[in-house]
């Protein structure tokens, strides 16, 4: 509760709402104690006195009654009626919801059918029908407004109750012979009350508005008694000549409802875990860049080079160093593998190249990425966009999520082309069919009109590859493209990629956690751990003699192609959280070869011939060869 209030206090608008509401309620409560003129005493010689006059701060209305006094009494009445309606609706609605949710089965079915029927009515219409039957009057308006809101509460509370009624402690209570009534009162109700309170806080504004509306129509409070709505209704005939009589009560309703809405929004935000975690942040079109050092020149050769690349995630005041200085290069026609466990930073490395890391929270904080000599980090979005898909294309994991679910695959393929050059409809279609044929999709001409969900997983991934090929890119970055597929399909996709790179001279960066895949496709491989490369070299060499203890363990886990279904949990322990990396070797906690000096300071990636390893006590060659 304290934490909740704290959260609320941090939301300034909600706090403002709370303060305004508290003031309004306070004045409504003390109204009878204030030295105000009687709100209902008419004085026809003093009609329509303008505001700020002597003796009548807000002026008088068409019968010469003091507006300030009427406003305060009217506010009191409106608040009372609104809160009462909310309370009645919440109580009855919650009771219905709890009964339906707790007993379930037919009881639930019948009750919820009825609730659905009520919800099939346009809202205010139902209230009008009830007032029509009961006759105009404030009490009847209150009943009507409460009644039309009951379904809303019943439905919400039922949902919560169903969740609770299936929990163990309720079962336990049942088995111990407690009566249903006692279970509901002692086990269910305490858990539901917070939800009821929240639902009330978000609807009480509506109820005040609706009762005011009915009164405005003349169906609520009857003269001389007046709530804010009927004050406004009576003032309407003098709207043009004396607008202040309308503006005073109208503004009051606006202020009250707005304060309640602000407060309700604040309550909702404070309780929504997604807002706190940033899960509702919109990713910018390109990853933010905050390089404090000068861009570095490439250290590797190739069409695409990464040099000391650093990417971080900043969530609140915590910093996760997802990529901590990665240097890589890939040449045309070459396939470079990047391998590591999930969380090793391999995907973030790949996404950083074209500024596709979700941002916020991602930020590229250092290093550079050169494509044909041009630095992409810090390149303006416009430039990046023209390169995306045209020079560097991506293939992602799980094409069911990465293809747009609501567009035909043909249209998505054509769009990949038309994003970069104008293309006629017929030409686009022909090209799309050609692309689908290139990735060996049978019946391409008819498949083109399918939606992604109508294809098998393997077919979908072929579409993903076809889309990457659409503009004949120089580089393809494939982020675990075969992980979600079964073994035979996986092998087909891999051989397809292999053929494509040979035919078209593509440079491929292939990200995976599966050494079997690396062995089949990649010329060179880089092993990543905790955001850094720990070993790098020609695939054969690394596979034959892994020098880094981590590489060795990784290989021991995944013996053959396709066995990769088994993730790397086989290594005891977890990779370190990248927000608090230990000094020295990040693998030290899980390493069997660890020595005291490993934990001392930074360990360099030590090159030897074509390979390099970041380890003080690497696995000896002979041992590694076994």
């Amino acid at each position, binding site marked *: 509760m304290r934490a909740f209030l704290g959260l609320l206090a941090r939301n300034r608008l909600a706090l403002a709402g709370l303060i305004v509401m508290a003031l309004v309620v306070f004045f409504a409560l003390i109204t009878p104690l204030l030295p105000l003129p009687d709100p209902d005493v008419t004085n026809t010689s003093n009609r329509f006195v303008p505001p700020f006059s002597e003796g009548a701060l807000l002026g008088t209305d068409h019968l010469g009654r003091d507006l300030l006094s009427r406003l305060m009494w009217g506010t009191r009445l409106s608040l009372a009626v609104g809160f009462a309606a909310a309370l009645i609706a919440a109580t009855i609605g919650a009771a219905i919801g709890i009964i339906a949710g707790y007993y379930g089965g037919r009881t639930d079915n019948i009750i919820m*059918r*009825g609730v*659905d*029927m*009520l919800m*099939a*009515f*346009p*809202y*205010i*219409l139902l209230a*009008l*029908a*009830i007032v*029509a*039957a*009961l*006759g*105009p009057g404030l009490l009847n308006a209150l009943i009507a407004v409460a009644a039309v809101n009951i379904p809303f509460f019943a439905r919400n509370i039922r949902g919560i109750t169903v969740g609770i009624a299936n929990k163990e402690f309720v079962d336990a209570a049942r088995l111990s012979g407690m009566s249903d009534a006692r279970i509901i009162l002692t086990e269910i109700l305490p858990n539901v009350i917070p939800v009821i309170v929240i639902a009330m806080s978000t609807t009480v504004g509506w109820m005040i508005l609706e009762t*005011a*509306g009915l009164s*405005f*129509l*003349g169906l609520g409070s009857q003269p001389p008694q007046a709530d804010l709505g009927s004050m*406004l209704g009576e003032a309407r005939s003098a709207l*043009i000549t004396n607008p202040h009589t*309308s503006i005073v009560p*109208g503004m009051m*309703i*606006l202020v009250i*409802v*707005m304060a309640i809405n602000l407060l309700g*929004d604040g309550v909702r935000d404070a309780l929504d875990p997604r807002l706190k975690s940033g899960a*509702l942040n*919109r*990713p910018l*079109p390109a990853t933010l860049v905050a390089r404090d050092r000068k861009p570095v020149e490439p250290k590797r050769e190739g069409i695409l080079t990464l040099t000391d690349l650093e990417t971080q995630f900043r969530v609140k005041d915590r910093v996760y160093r997802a990529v901590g200085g990665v240097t890589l290069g890939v040449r045309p026609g070459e396939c470079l593998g990047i391998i590591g466990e999930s969380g090793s930073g391999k995907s973030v490395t790949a996404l950083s190249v074209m500024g*596709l890391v979700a941002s916020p929270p991602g930020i590229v904080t250092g290093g550079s990425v050169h494509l044909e000599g041009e630095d992409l980090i810090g390149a303006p*979005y416009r430039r990046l*966009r*023209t390169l*995306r898909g*045209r020079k560097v*294309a*991506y293939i*992602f994991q*799980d094409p069911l*999520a*990465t293809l*747009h*679910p*609501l*567009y035909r695959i043909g249209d998505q393929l054509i*769009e*990949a082309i038309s*994003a970069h050059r104008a293309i006629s409809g017929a030409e686009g279609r022909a090209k799309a069919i050609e692309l689908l044929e290139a990735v060996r999709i049978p019946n391409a001409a008819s498949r083109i009109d399918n*939606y992604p*969900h109508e294809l098998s997983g393997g077919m979908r991934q072929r579409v993903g590859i076809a*889309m990457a090929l659409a*503009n004949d890119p120089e580089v393809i970055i494939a982020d675990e493209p075969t992980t979600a597929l079964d073994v035979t399909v996986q092998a087909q996709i891999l051989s397809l990629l292999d053929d494509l790179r040979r035919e078209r001279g593509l440079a491929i960066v292939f990200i995976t956690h599966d050494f079997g895949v690396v062995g089949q496709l990649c010329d060179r491989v880089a092993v990543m751990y905790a955001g850094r490369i720990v070993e790098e070299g020609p695939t054969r060499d690394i596979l034959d003699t892994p020098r880094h203890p981590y590489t060795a363990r990784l290989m021991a886990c995944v013996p053959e192609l396709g066995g990769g279904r088994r993730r790397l949990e086989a290594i005891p322990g977890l990779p370190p959280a990248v927000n608090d990396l230990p000094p020295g070797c990040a693998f030290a906690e899980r390493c069997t070869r660890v020595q005291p000096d490993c934990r001392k300071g930074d360990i360099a990636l030590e090159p030897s011939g074509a390979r390099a390893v970041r380890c003080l006590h690497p696995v000896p060659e002979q041992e590694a060869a076994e």
Partner: protein
Amino acid sequence: MTRYILRRLLSAIPVLLGISVIVFAIMAMIPGDPATAILGSYATPENVAALNEDLGLDKPLVQQYFIWLGNMLQGDFGRSFALNRPVLDEVLERFNATLVLAGTSFVFCSVLGIMAGVVSAANQYGAADKAITFVVLLGISIPSFFLGMMMILTFAVNLRWFPASGMWPIYGDRDIWALLDHLVMPAFALSVVATGVIARLSRSAMLEVLRQDFIRTARAKGVPERGVIWRHALRAAMVSIIPVLGIQAGFVLSGAVYIEVVFQWPGIGRMLVDAILRRDILLVQGGVVIVAACYVFFNIVVDVAQSLLDPRIKT
């Protein structure tokens, strides 16, 4: 598709029956002798007897319900004694005017609300987002009847841009321009709250979609940001926006009551209020049933639109 529409139409039958039961039950709450209540000042002994005969008011409630339902199915909604004409004629005539008003409002709030939500989400926490969020908050907090009055004061009385009330000019042609002239203010006032609600929902729906993987794919393809937002994200967000449009249509349709009263619009809402104050029970009953039924059919249209928009829905 045709079969899906037929199935949805069939499933509306129990809902319509439910609605008739609810309306009947509400009217059965009327205190005192129903015939006297219905007839009001026309309650001569002969009239009471005739009405009892007509509606079976002296029979048990269940029987009364079926008599009433049977009459309705034959298009007989009874007679309004105050207006001295059949309920159905009056209701249909008034309903036309309401449809013009509510329909315009609905188009207005859908387009404006969705656009505001998209712009807001695309500039999350930016100046446009903050401005829209504030206006939306104001919009959902202001009572539509108060807004309408203030609009009359400003735009009709002071600026003289639009006529203050009515649907048609008293003199002059009843053409489309005259109608539009009269329609602008009430349609806008009626749409404000719904616009706010739709904008809010669209914003959060868009934010949810923008984090999805297929948005990243679109960006990786090099689709310009405008296309990412309006073609990819909005299309996917529409799946959760459309049901809310259906709910808001109900709010616009019934919220028209206030606007019709403020702007003297000759619609069904004003007819209902007058009828309630006159205690013209049969007119209220007929009006409520017909508006509710119309809303049920509108929701079927929404469902069908949804299934057209989302190929994953099995039809």
